[in-house]
Structure formats: C-alpha cells, structure tokens
C-alpha cells in the first residue's frame, strides 16, 4: 500500500542516515556547534544552580494560564528571531546575487550570491511558515492566554490541562522545524506549498514531510487552544460581566477563535491529503489520475485567509486596549468595534479565492471575490476611525506602548490601501506573484508585530510587577520603524519594476540600488533587535525603581488592572463583581480603587500535571517518525500517547482547595509586596448611587455569569 521510495530505507532507521546530516555545510555546521555548546552551557548552568526542580514544578508541569502564556510568548519571540535571521539571509543573498554573470561564492556551491537555489528555497519556506504560524500565532495566543481570563474575572481557563497541552504540542512543532536545520532538509516549496511540486516525484527528500507534520502539529495545538478560549469566555465570566461589558480585546479573541476553530480543520484535511499522496500513493493533487492541482490551493486558502484574520483580529484588540488607556477616554464606538470584529471574521470566509485570482475561473467568480475582499475595508475602516475618534480630544500620553500602537495604525493604512489595490482583479493580474504582494502582506503582519510589542510593553507590568524601560522602548520603536521603511518601501518599488517573489538570482542590474537600501534596512532591524535585548536587560536591572501598583499606568480601564501586579496565581483573591464595562476606570473615578475584599472564601485550583509535556514530547516523536518513515517509532509513540491519555482520564484530577484563612494571608502578602503605584493619582469624588458590590458574595466562584448586578449604575 505504501509508495516506493526513491532512495534507501531500513526498517530500523527509516530514511534516516548519516549522510542526511549536513555536516559539510559551511553555515549549518558551525551553527550546530554553537547551538550544542550553548545547550551544554544552559544545561550545566541549570544543574549548577539546582534549578531543574524549580523549572519542572513551576513551568514544565504548570497549568497556570499566565505561565503558559509567558512560555508561548518566549517561544514566539525566539521563533520571531529565527524567522528574522531567515529574512536577513534572503536579503543578503539578493543583494549579493543581483546582476548578470557569475558573482557567486564557489565555496558555498553557489553561482549567484552565497546560497544555492535549493538552500534559498528552504529559507524562504521556513521564513514564511515560522513567521505566521510559529511566531505571530504563539505571540497572540500567549497574550490572549494571559489577558482574556483576567479581563473576564476568571481564575484560569475553562480547561487548564488542555491549555498546557496546546502549548506543548506547539512547542513540538517548533522543535520539529528547528531539527530540520540539522537533520535532513526543509521544504523548498514555499510556506503554503504548491501542487504538484510537493508530490514525492518532484520533492523526493524529507523536506516536504517536515513541512506537513510541523503544520499538522501547530494546527492541532491551535485548534485545542481555540476550543478552550471559547469555552472560557462563554462559561467563566465573573458576575456582572455581561456580553456588552466584555472588553474589546476579549471580543476580538472570541471572534478570532471562532475563525480558528472553524478553519484549522481545513488545513489539517488538506495536509492529510498531501500526506496520503506522498505516503500512500493516492492522486488527490497530481495532474493525472483524476487529481487536480488547484484543489490543493483551494483547500489551503480556505483555511489560509481566515487564518490571516485570526492573527490580525487579536492585534486589533490590543490596539483597542492601548489607545483608550493612553487617551484617557473610553473606546469610541464600542458596539461598532465589536460588530466590526465579527464582520471581519464573517467576511474572512468568502474571500479566499483572491489568493489565486489568476487560476482562470473567469470574470463572474473573480467579481464576487473581488467585491467580498473590498467589503473587508468597511469594518476595518470603522475600526480605524474609532481609534482616531478615541484619540480625538483625548488627553494623550505618548508612552512607548502608545507609539507602537500608533505605528501599527500607519502600517494598517498602507497595508489596507495596497490590499484594496490587490483586490481588483485587473491590478492583481499585473502584480500577482511579485514582491509588491510580499510588501503588502508584510505591512499587515508588521501591523501585528507592532501591536504585539505594544501589548507586551502595556501588559508587562501586570504580569511581572514592573514596567519596561520607556526610553529604550521608544528607541527600539524608531529603529524598528526605520528598518521597516527601508526594507519594505523599496520592496513596493521592486514589485512595480517586475521583481517576482522567491528570486534567488535577481538578474536585473537596475534593481541593485533598491537591494542595497533593503540591506541597510536589515542592518537597522538588527540594531532594533539589540535594542530589544538591551531594553529587557535594563528593565530587569532597574526593576526596583519601576515597581507598579495594581493600576500600572494610572489610566487603565479594564478588569485586569484591579488585581495585584504581578498577578498572583489565583488571579483574584475574591472573584470581582463587575459594575461597568471599564471596571478599573469606573472604580478609580468613583473612589473604589483601594477597596479590598472584606472576607474570603475557599477557592478551588487545578493541580499541575506532567501529562501535557509528555504528550507534547510524544507528538514530536510521532512527527519525526512520520517524516523519516520510521514506522515502529511512529506506532509506538502513538500507542503510548493513547495510553497516557487513558491513564489521565482514569485517574481524574480533583484539584486542590485553598482555605479562606490562607487566602487572606496570601492576599495581604501580595498587597504588601506591591508598591503603591497610584499614590500620585487623582482620586475620584466618591460614588453616590447607592450600594455597590465590588466582590462577589459567598462562594464567589460558582456565581453564574451574565446577570447584571441590581445596584450597578454605569457612568454615562
């Protein structure tokens, strides 16, 4: 039933052989040595300081949504760096290779530049896949993980264990793509894959298999996460958090996760069919035997377009939290903001054909998808106007988080307008597959990156208890923006001049000056990376001076700012009773900021579990075994996975109880640790509207969600 492989195969090692390890490659071999040395140093350091127990207990087995979120963000930042290095290598290759004639480095086996086409293909494929699915997605999922439960007043996600499982399966995907650097090759057919080049006949190596199983793992992890987010927001809201009191960020998380839940299965099916073609010899996407190449492209973008809105919507939510805080005004047009998020999510389902307008299905189909694509501009425009109206006549503070958010608006504008151009089929036929398209979607994805940096600066004090350094945050912003300008504006120009994407050898000498400008831009980006590392170092060094209270910015608005900074593991000592959409701002304006719970009740917390990390490791083994066709290993890992799941299901996990007295003690300690960050803040004039419930009464955890409290009077 299995296909005949081109090349050797052994029952024990599958396709794996010593010759698959590129120890002669002058880039990879030194890199491997460096990574191994760094790994040994890390392990030795942890062992020397005796931190293994701490890491295992506090991080590897944790089910705390904040710690999982931090690990997601660290994973995302590492992969952002890896993807950036890929980008740097591509830019350098094009700068060196431009022009006619032989200008390559023979030592690398390249005729043009320093990379052979096969190697260049792997780099751009890895760059795309990493940046979208292993950098942007973990960063956004991590931020949603930390903030969504806090914004709705929950103690944890609905399924804490499932949350950990999602993280460790995503980590398995990261390990799989990283190991493809040193064992075998990665795919060279672009991040989205082309039929039929990914068929076994045209890509006989293991690169495409790495690509399939990396994507399958990350799709699995993200689907599990989206189920968890939806259940959390539907079921776990604190008393008083009605649907119209959800912060905009939580709303965008809901809309984004509806997209994720409904679209990721398409990707999994599409890749399973590619896998069937490569492993079982079916012909779904071949040109002969009844297959159709375009069916793959269709299925992929059926997921792919909703996916790009899955990553942009939480970014919009972050901007919607940062701008009101630093404008000292509520968000303008809350209802339209929420409706716009859902309009974008809904339209995301009917636009996917614009990724292959040139397929040749004629004017009627193209018109429908062109009009649908233009429709996206309406809710997005609503959002942009709402943000500007929020700032209009506001009391603006240009803190570093705020300027990152404003920067995101400019990128959104450029990306959106070029997107409108691309939605016109006539223009699309001209610039299709040119770097104009690449520059367009980099504007959109960089809008996400700007929003993510804004959000990291904004919520950092909530999670760690101290602010990041403002000056270095701004220096990094200007360096990053200069890099963005220098790399991507020339890219728009080159697109108009006819440069196609994925060009390992740009033959036209007239493009050379623009490549040089881009290379300068990449150098500035490198400086911004250094500025980021320095920002982290300086902030940790000076943390004592930058400690904050519960309301870190003094003008914060949503519910997460009423609990302590750093957030204790139980989130809220007593589940808060929410009286207003902008609860923190409402309490501040009415003089309730210092109100603490008067009594405590027993609370129930989930236990740590090592099962999630074990299953994550096993899924990595499954992916590795499938890639190299080591069948015994794959089957063994799958069987063990099922056994571990059955073991956990049978064991049950009752969690543990923290008694009321213990809660009172912990709450007191947590408050003492916190600096009184808002001593300088103006206090509100007091509330005259009757009694106010600040914390839920009695066994607060079981409070039903969705019922507004009787005494609450929203400020209006």
């Amino acid at each position: 039933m299995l296909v005949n492989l081109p090349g050797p195969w052994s029952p024990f090692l599958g396709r794996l052989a010593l010759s698959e390890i590129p120890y002669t490659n002058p880039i990879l071999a030194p890199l491997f040595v460096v990574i191994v040395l760094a790994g040994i140093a890390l392990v030795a350091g942890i062992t020397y300081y005796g931190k293994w127990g701490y890491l295992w207990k506090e991080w590897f087995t944790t089910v705390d949504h904040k710690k999982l979120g931090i690990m997601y963000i660290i994973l995302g930042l590492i992969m952002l760096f890896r993807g950036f290095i890929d980008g740097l290598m591509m830019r350098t290759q094009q700068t060196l290779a431009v022009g006619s004639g032989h200008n390559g480095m023979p030592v690398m086996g390249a005729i043009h530049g320093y990379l052979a086409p096969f190697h260049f293909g792997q780099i751009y494929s890895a760059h795309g896949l990493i940046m979208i699915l292993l950098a942007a997605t973990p960063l956004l999922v991590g931020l949603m993980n930390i903030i969504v439960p806090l914004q709705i007043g929950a103690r944890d996600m609905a399924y804490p264990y499932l949350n950990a499982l999602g993280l460790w399966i995503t980590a398995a995907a990261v390990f799989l793509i990283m190991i493809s650097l040193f064992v075998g090759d990665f795919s060279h057919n672009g991040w989205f894959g082309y039929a039929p080049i990914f068929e076994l006949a045209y890509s006989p190596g293991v690169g495409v298999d790495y690509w399939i199983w990396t994507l399958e793992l990350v799709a699995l992890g993200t689907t599990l996460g989206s189920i968890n987010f939806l259940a959390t927001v539907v079921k776990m809201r604190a008393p008083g958090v009605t649907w119209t009191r959800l912060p905009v960020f939580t709303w965008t998380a809901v809309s984004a996760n509806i997209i994720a839940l409904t679209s990721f299965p398409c990707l999994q099916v599409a890749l399973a069919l590619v896998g069937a073609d490569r492993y079982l010899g079916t012909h779904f996407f071949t040109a002969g035997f009844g297959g159709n190449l375009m069916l793959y492209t269709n299925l992929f973008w059926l997921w792919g377009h909703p996916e790009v809105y899955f990553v942009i919507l939480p970014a919009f939510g972050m901007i919607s939290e940062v701008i009101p805080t630093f404008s000292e005004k509520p968000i303008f047009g809350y209802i339209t903001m929420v409706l716009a998020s859902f309009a974008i999510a809904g339209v995301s389902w009917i636009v996917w054909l614009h990724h292959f307008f040139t397929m040749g299905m004629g004017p009627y189909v193209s018109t429908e998808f062109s009009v649908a694509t233009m429709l996206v501009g309406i809710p997005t425009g609503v959002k942009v106007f709402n943000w500007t109206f929020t700032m209009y006549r506001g009391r603006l503070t240009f803190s570093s988080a705020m300027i990152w958010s404003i920067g995101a608006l400019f990128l959104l504008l450029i990306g959106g307008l070029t997107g409108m151009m691309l939605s016109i089929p006539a223009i699309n036929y001209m610039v299709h597959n040119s770097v104009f398209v690449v520059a367009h979607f980099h504007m959109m994805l960089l809008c996400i990156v700007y929003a993510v940096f804004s959000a990291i600066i904004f919520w950092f004090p909530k999670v760690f208890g101290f602010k990041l350094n403002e000056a270095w945050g701004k220096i990094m912003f200007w360096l990053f923006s200069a890099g963005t300008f220098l790399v991507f504006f020339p890219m728009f120009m080159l697109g108009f001049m006819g440069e196609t994407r994925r060009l390992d050898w740009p033959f036209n000498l007239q493009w050379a000056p623009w490549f040089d400008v881009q290379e300068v831009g990449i150098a500035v980006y490198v400086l911004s990376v250094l500025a980021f590392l320095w920002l982290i170092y300086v902030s940790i060094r000076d943390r004592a001076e930058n400690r904050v209270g519960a309301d870190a910015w003094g003008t914060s608005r949503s519910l997460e700012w009423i609990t302590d900074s750093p957030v204790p593991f139980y989130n809220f000592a007593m589940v808060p009773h929410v009286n207003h959409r902008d609860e923190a701002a409402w309490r501040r304006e009415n003089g309730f900021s210092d109100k603490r719970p008067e009594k405590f009740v027993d609370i129930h917390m989930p236990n740590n579990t090592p099962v999630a990390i074990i299953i994550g490791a096993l899924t990595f083994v499954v992916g590795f075994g499938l890639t190299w066709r080591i069948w015994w290993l794959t089957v063994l890992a799958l069987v063990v996975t099922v056994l571990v799941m059955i073991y956990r299901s049978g064991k049950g996990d009752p969690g543990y109880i923290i008694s009321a007295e213990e809660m009172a003690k912990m709450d007191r300690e947590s408050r003492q640790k916190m600096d009184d960050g808002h001593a300088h803040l103006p206090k509100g004039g007091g509330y005259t509207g009757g009694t106010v419930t600040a914390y839920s009464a009695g066994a607060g955890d079981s409070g039903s969600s969705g019922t507004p409290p009787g005494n609450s009077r929203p400020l209006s």
Partner: protein
Amino acid sequence: MSHGHSNPLQHPEVQMASRSSYLAGFVIASLLMLAATILVSGQVLAPFALLLTIMGCAGLAAIAQMYFLLHIDISEHNIWNTVALVMFIPLFVITIGLTWWMFSQLYMRTMPMIPGMPGMH
C-alpha cells in the same frame, strides 16, 4: 475554574456519553466509508453516478458522526451544540458552494469536453 456542579460526572455533556451510541456511530461511519471504497475501487457505477453515490455516503457518515459521536441535534437543552450546528450550515454552503461554482467555471473554460475521454464534467 467554574464549579456550577461539584461533580463533573453530573455535567449534562458527560451524562450524554454512552458506549452504545459511540459504537453505533463508529460502525455506521466505517461501513459507509468501506462501501464507498469498494464502489470506487471496483468502478461499479458510471462516473457521475459513482460521484453522487460516494457523496451520499459521505453525507450520511457525517450525519451519523454528528448525531452519535458529537450529540449535535436540535433539542433545546443542548443550546451550545445547536448553536454549533446553526453556525455550521452557512459555512458548509459557503465553502462547498463557492468551491463548486469556482471549479465549474474553471472547468468550463479550461477543460473542454473531448469525445471519448472520461472525466467528471
């Protein structure tokens, strides 16, 4: 953590679990897929009739799995399952319908009927 019910075994979703319905769903779906495989590999029917038959099998298998495994029906006590079902219908129409339209237009333009050549159009 939400504790509307102290015992998770009393949650309505857990109460709906039943071994016989899981088995029934699994067996029915497997049989339908087996039937489709036999029909295709044996080429028992004319191409278009075969296409319709295996589409019917896939539809029945999907319904069996939804009903027996996921307990998705239109009863009132199970409101979130019903919401999921209602959400599914427009998505199904959009994805399958637009794909169908797209490819029929594509085939009309790029794959003219050649007499004697078997095909799906």
